[in-house]
């Protein structure tokens, strides 16, 4: 890893610390964590529920900050990330490291204080998994980085549920599985139309290593597994019809869009509309699906 990309002399602006936490990624993490919490059969007092979701958000922010600290050299090579605080030289690496470690430790201690040991342990595991397993170990070494690393992003609903109940049950494990299986098609769709960035940074993403047709096939295969995992809670009688119908309709659309990606033969980034559509829809898919889990629990 190379040292700081650009020298900084001024103290970093607080907005750059905020940018370090990847707020856009955090929104999905917070939402799925909140859904895990609200779908649980135990209702926490609002102050504790709010704190649990806050801790999930802070932990995600800490993981994002540590990821940017470690990857500042890679970020400088990719157009999509070159303007982040570290590669742009608006912050020194030590500040990012201190911020990430401090925020992570604070989130785990606060979670333990407000909810239970198991939720705090899972929260710590999610940060360590994202930073050590995904960022440090897998990302630069294998095309399966997203597959295994996806587990880090799948923790929030499990943590939300455990924060409320104190136990790991089948339903939150299925919610974990949905995000885990959803991550590869989501990121591979993105990596298809920004693959030149990944190639320039020598990140072994699947389109760079295995080629575009293989990636499109893998996207479709994983989309099938997402559909099965999404319908499973209803099939196993863990949810009602509201979730069941929502999961089936959404998964059919997801599969249709993945099918269009599979059918696309173009290697030109400008002609990758199916990939862009699948990427955009995949975010919506997760939001609506997890929203349906909560609506089903409280309405049905």
């Amino acid at each position, binding site marked *: 890893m190379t040292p700081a990309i650009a020298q900084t*002399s*001024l*103290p*970093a*602006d*607080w907005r750059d610390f905020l940018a370090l936490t990847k707020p856009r990624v955090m929104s999905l993490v917070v939402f799925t964590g909140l859904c895990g919490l609200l779908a649980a059969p135990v209702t926490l*007092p*609002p*102050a*504790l529920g709010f*704190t649990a979701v*806050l801790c999930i958000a802070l932990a995600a922010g800490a993981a994002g900050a540590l990821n940017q600290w470690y990857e500042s050299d890679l970020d400088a090579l990719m157009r999509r990330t070159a303007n982040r605080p570290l590669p742009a030289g608006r912050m020194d690496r030590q500040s990012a490291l201190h911020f990430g470690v401090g925020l992570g430790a604070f989130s785990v201690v606060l979670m333990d*204080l*407000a909810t239970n040991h198991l939720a705090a342990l899972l929260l710590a595991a999610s940060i360590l998994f994202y930073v050590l397993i995904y960022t440090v170990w897998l990302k630069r070494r294998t095309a399966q980085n997203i597959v295994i690393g996806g587990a880090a992003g799948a923790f929030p609903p499990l943590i939300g549920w455990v924060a409320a109940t104190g136990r790991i049950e089948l339903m939150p494990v299925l919610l974990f599985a949905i995000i885990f299986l959803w991550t590869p098609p989501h990121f591979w769709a993105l990596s298809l139309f920004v693959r030149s960035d990944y190639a320039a940074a020598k990140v072994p993403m699947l389109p760079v290593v295995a080629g575009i047709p293989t990636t499109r096939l893998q996207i479709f295969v994983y989309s099938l597994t997402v559909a099965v995992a999404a319908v499973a809670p209803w099939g196993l009688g863990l949810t009602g019809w509201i979730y069941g119908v929502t999961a089936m309709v959404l998964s059919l659309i997801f599969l249709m869009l993945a099918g269009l990606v599979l059918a696309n033969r173009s290697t030109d980034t400008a002609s990758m509309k199916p990939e862009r559509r699948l990427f955009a829809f995949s975010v919506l898919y997760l939001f609506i699906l997890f929203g349906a889990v909560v609506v089903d629990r409280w309405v049905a």
Partner: protein
Amino acid sequence: MTPQPEDERVRRQRERARLMAWLLAAFVVLLFLITVAKIGLHR
């Protein structure tokens, strides 16, 4: 006209200090609410 580096440094430090003060105050309130909720749970 662009601000002098020293002025900019002071401005950023003040902004960060003000933000930290608000965050600490919010943390104190949160700790109080957590304590009240925990006492309620164990009654």
